[in-house]
C-alpha cells in the first residue's frame, strides 16, 4: 500500500479579472509592455498529495565489471548505496581514479537514481557525464575503469 505523507494546502486567490489588450493607439500610455499582476488572497485549495513511499514492483540489479576481476552482481532494494574507493562504501571500487565517496544510488518513488558526489573524474551514464540521472533498463554507468550495467525487470502484482 502506498503511504501518503501529508496533504498540503495552497492558497488560490481570486481577484477581478483584468483584461489586457495590445491595442496600438490610444491605450498605449496606459499599458506598459511589461506588466505585473497585483494579487490578493482568499480560498484554500487542496494541493497534490506527495507520495513518499511506494513498493517497488521491479527486480533490479547492477552488474559490475572491474579490470581483471570476474563480474559481480548486486541486487538492489530501497536502501541507499554509496559507491567509491573507501572501504566502507556499500559498493567498494578499488580504483585509483574513483573518488573515496564517488556516487550514490537511491530510490525516489518507484525509480532508481544515480547521483555523482562531486567526484574528481565524474560519473557517466551511456557516455554522458551526469550529476544526477534516473536510471533505465540497460543503462551503462562508468566510474573510472568500472563498467556498471543497471538491469531492471518490472512487474505488476
Amino acid at each position, binding site marked *: 500500500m502506498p503511504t501518503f505523507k501529508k496533504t498540503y494546502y495552497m492558497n488560490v486567490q*481570486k481577484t477581478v479579472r483584468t483584461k489586457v489588450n495590445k491595442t496600438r493607439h490610444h491605450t498605449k500610455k496606459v499599458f506598459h509592455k511589461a506588466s505585473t499582476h497585483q494579487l490578493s488572497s482568499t480560498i484554500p485549495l487542496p494541493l497534490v498529495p506527495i507520495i513518499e513511499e511506494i513498493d517497488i514492483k521491479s527486480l533490479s540489479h547492477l552488474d559490475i565489471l572491474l579490470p581483471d576481476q570476474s563480474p559481480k552482481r548486486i541486487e538492489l532494494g530501497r536502501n541507499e548505496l554509496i559507491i567509491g574507493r573507501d572501504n566502507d562504501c556499500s559498493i567498494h571500487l578499488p580504483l585509483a581514479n574513483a573518488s573515496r565517496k564517488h556516487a550514490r544510488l537511491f530510490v525516489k518513488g518507484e525509480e532508481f537514481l544515480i547521483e555523482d558526489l562531486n567526484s574528481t573524474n565524474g560519473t557517466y551514464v551511456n557516455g*554522458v557525464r551526469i*550529476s544526477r540521472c534516473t536510471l533505465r533498463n540497460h543503462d551503462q554507468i562508468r566510474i573510472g575503469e568500472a563498467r556498471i550495467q543497471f538491469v531492471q525487470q518490472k512487474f505488476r502484482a
Partner: protein
Amino acid sequence: MNKTDPVKMYVTFWGTRGSISTPGSSTEKYGGNTSCVSIHHGDTDIIIDAGTGIRNLGLELFQQTEKHKNQLNLHLLLSHTHWDHIQGLPFFVPAYLKGAKLTIYGSPKKEVFLESILQRQMDVNYFPVEMNALAADISIKEISEEKIVIDSVVIDWQEQIYHPGGCVRYRFTAGGKKIVYATDVELDQMFNLKNPKNEREKLKKEYCKFISGADLLIADGQYTAEEYPDKIGFGHTSIPLALEIAYHQKVKQIAIFHHEPQHSDNMLDRLWCQLSPKYSSSGHHMTVFWAREGMTIPV
C-alpha cells in the same frame, strides 16, 4: 539536489518531447513530457519553457522548499508560446504557493501581450483556475533588446524566424561556461540554398556565432534526414544537420531535443548508434546525446 559546486551550472531535462506529450512504455527512457529544462547555478533557478515536464519540476521545487523552509524565486524563460512550451504552466505547483516569486520572460515581438497569451490558456473554458487567481507573485516581462542578467547568469537571446510564429533562442553564460537552448527552429531552411542569399547568409552567421564553442547546446532534432523532406516548413530540424553545424562550431556537447512523438526509445537509441560515433573519433571530440527526462548534466 545534493551539495552542488557553486561555480557550475546544472542542467536538468524535465521534458524533451516535441509537439505533444507521449506517455507509454515505448517512450519511458527519453521521456514523454514536452519541453522543460532547468538551470541551477548557485542559488539561482532558471527554467526554460513550460511544457508538461514542468509539473515534475514543480513538485521537486515544492519538496525542496518544504524541507529547507525557503521561499522560491524562479525565472521562467519562454522560447515561444506553442502548446508544447506552455501547457504545463497551470500544473506548476510553485505558481500556487503564496510567497513564491515567479518571473516569466518571453518575446516582445508578438501581436498580443505575452501576459494575455498566458492568461487565455487559463480562461475558464480551458482550465478551472484563472491565472490571476494564482497565489504566487507572478510578473510577466517581455524581454527588451538588452541582455537579461539574473544574479550571476548572463542571458542573451535572438529571434529565430524559421519556425511558424517565431521562437527565441537563449544563451546562458556563467562561470566562464556557455549553454545554448535553441529549439523549434528549421535550420534546414537557414542552410537551404534556395532561400534568398543575403538573408540566409546573415541568419546563418548569427546562428553560428551564437552557438560557437558552447559547452552545451540543446538543439532541435525532431526529424531524421529521411523524414525531413515531408516536413518542410514545419519549423524543425533534421538531426544530421544539427550535428554537423554544431561540430563545425566547436560545440563541446550537444543534446538532441524536441523528439518527434512518433520516435520510440528504440528508434532514438538506433539513431544515436548511427549518428554519434562520427563525432567521438575524428578531430575534436563532441559529446552527442539524446536529451532524456530525469537527467542532470554539470556544465
